[in-house]
């Protein structure tokens, strides 16, 4: 029996969801709605891409969303003070990389389990958000970053093209350079990777820094889109990103990554969230549907694995 790849399965789920929403809501398949859904995929797509790399290397980062929040302040404050847009835009990735460096230091240098280290950092970054904002949110920031979002290239907002380019780069690095197999080997088993002569420490550290850079880019785009930073910025993004990456084929135990699957996972999540509002389903069902979907996918996955294992021993 040919095994349905995770990418194909999630693409089918996405098509089914879109078909359902098209049939039940006259507003789903309108240009305006699809563009709105596309735009709101942006920051999640970036965070999920970073999360995918971290998961592939056998780690996890629950602080990614809040780290984006902290980096957003670094973008928003200069904007508010009237600094040049380019400077503010660059502040996002710079601070993102710095925060990723701290995560790397804690996990690789401090030899801490990633879930514990990033839970700790989640608390620290949240407090930092609070302290840096001092109870006064940044809101109604100047529109200096609008050039990032406005305009249309080949019928698509340039920011979406930028994200697509980043996904392609990560795919190339994973599949066409030696760094890809090294990363997956570390995620598959650090001891084996070490014996194979891979610099595990450097690989893991680089992964957190790269994810930090992606969080930082997400921060710049977040500020450009929403023009505000409040104490709760990014609070739920890390969880959504983990769900999207795992739906897309990442394993929570490491060693697996799918760039296409992650992208599809992001779109599926956002389409589901959109459709449920369009259909007028009660708010609380959003969480139920997302959670159930994740559990179902993982259950089907492990059942399939069991069956394959059964065949082999039979």
């Amino acid at each position: 029996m040919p095994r349905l790849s995770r990418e194909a399965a999630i693409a089918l789920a996405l098509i089914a969801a879109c078909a359902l929403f098209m049939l039940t809501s006259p507003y789903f398949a309108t240009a305006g709605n699809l563009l709105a859904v596309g735009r709101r995929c942006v920051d999640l797509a970036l965070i999920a891409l970073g999360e995918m790399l971290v998961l592939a290397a056998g780690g996890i980062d629950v602080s990614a969303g809040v780290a984006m929040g902290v980096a957003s302040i670094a973008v928003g404050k200069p904007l508010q003070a009237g600094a040049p847009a380019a400077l503010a835009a660059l502040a996002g990735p710079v601070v993102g990389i710095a925060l990723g460096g701290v995560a790397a230091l804690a996990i690789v240098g401090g030899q801490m389990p990633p879930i514990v280290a990033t839970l700790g950092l989640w608390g620290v970054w949240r407090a930092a958000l609070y302290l840096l904002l001092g109870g006064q949110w940044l809101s109604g920031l100047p529109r200096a970053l609008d050039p990032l979002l406005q305009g249309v290239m080949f019928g698509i907002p340039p920011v979406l093209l930028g994200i697509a380019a980043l996904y392609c780069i990560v795919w190339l690095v994973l599949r066409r350079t030696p760094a890809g197999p090294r990363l997956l080997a570390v995620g598959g088993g650090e001891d084996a990777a070490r014996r194979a002569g891979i610099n595990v420490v450097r690989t893991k550290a680089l992964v957190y820094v790269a994810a930090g850079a992606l969080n930082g880019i997400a921060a710049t785009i977040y500020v450009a889109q929403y023009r505000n930073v409040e104490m709760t910025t990014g609070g739920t993004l890390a969880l959504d990103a983990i769900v999207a990456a795992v739906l897309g084929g990442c394993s929570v135990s490491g060693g697996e990554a799918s760039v296409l699957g992650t992208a599809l996972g992001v779109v599926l999540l956002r389409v589901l969230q959109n459709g449920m509002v369009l259909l007028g389903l009660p708010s609380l069902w959003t969480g139920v549907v997302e959670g159930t979907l994740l559990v179902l996918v993982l259950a089907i996955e492990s059942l399939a694995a069991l069956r394959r294992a059964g065949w082999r021993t039979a």
Partner: protein
Amino acid sequence: MPRSRLPLHRAARRIGAAALLAATMTATLPAWAAGKPQVAFVPQIVGIPYFNAMQAGGNKAAAEFGIKFIYTGPVDANPVDQLQIVNNLIDQGVKAIAVSVLDASSLEPVMASARAKGITIFTSDSDAPKSGRPVFVAQASDQDLGFTIIDELVKRIGPDATVGIVSGAATATNLNTWIGFMKQRAAAKYPKLTLLAPRYAGGSAEQAAQIATDLMTAHPDLKGLIAVASTTCPGVGQAIESAGKIGSVVGTGYCSPNTARSYLKSGAFGFTVLWDPAALGYLTVWAGQQLIEHKPFAAENMVPGMANPVSFDAATGVLLLGPPAVFTKANVDQFNF
């Protein structure tokens, strides 16, 4: 003795002794040194715009009524620190101390001991209803907050309209209470007003923006959007701007002027409803003066410097600032919180 070996409780005792010494020294400064009666207000946390505004209002009242106003509070909303500060004020002999309560249970015993010393502790902004406080200076009633937002919205969009509600957490009691009063008002006074079922954005402006956008897509006839949690205000305002719906959808919510300023000015928000913390601070100092002078509160009180009479409910001991404040494009720049 190596410092690391210093037992913790001994260290604590030393610090305690030092604090006691400091407290005694301040206490020996006569309270009447300034020649003016003293009223203190202890906020939940210092250094945030909301309480800064209360402080400014308190200062204004102090100048008006010839009071010495003391404003001091914890730096991190810690109930233990707040209690310590209240104790220090008692030791200093401040006659009336208002507290925006962080932890009602820990404050109750302190109140009793203060009473024994002829000092009155009362509450403002956040209450401790069972503490036996003589008065709670309240910002606005939940019912008024719920009714006002519907009334003001109907003034702008008419009574025959569909309105979306974006709230924060589904479990937040105060937000749900306000939504309940909105529904009650709509049902009783505007039968043609359709309030959509509230949607919950958690705490995030991003999710609020998504929900607001989707509500506008799903209901092309939508005329109003209410941001119930303050964290949802920027998201709702931003969504109306991005959707190009300024003018056809009126945004509103329980948003501070600083949070909503740009959306009020762009027209995405027609108005916001909250109370004026500066007026609350002003009223708090006035109430403190009444307590010091042993003047009872009347059912309706004329407070010099305030436009409307202030009601006092003897049964609950609530001194109500008045109807909620409505912030619009026209008046938003007069406020900074």
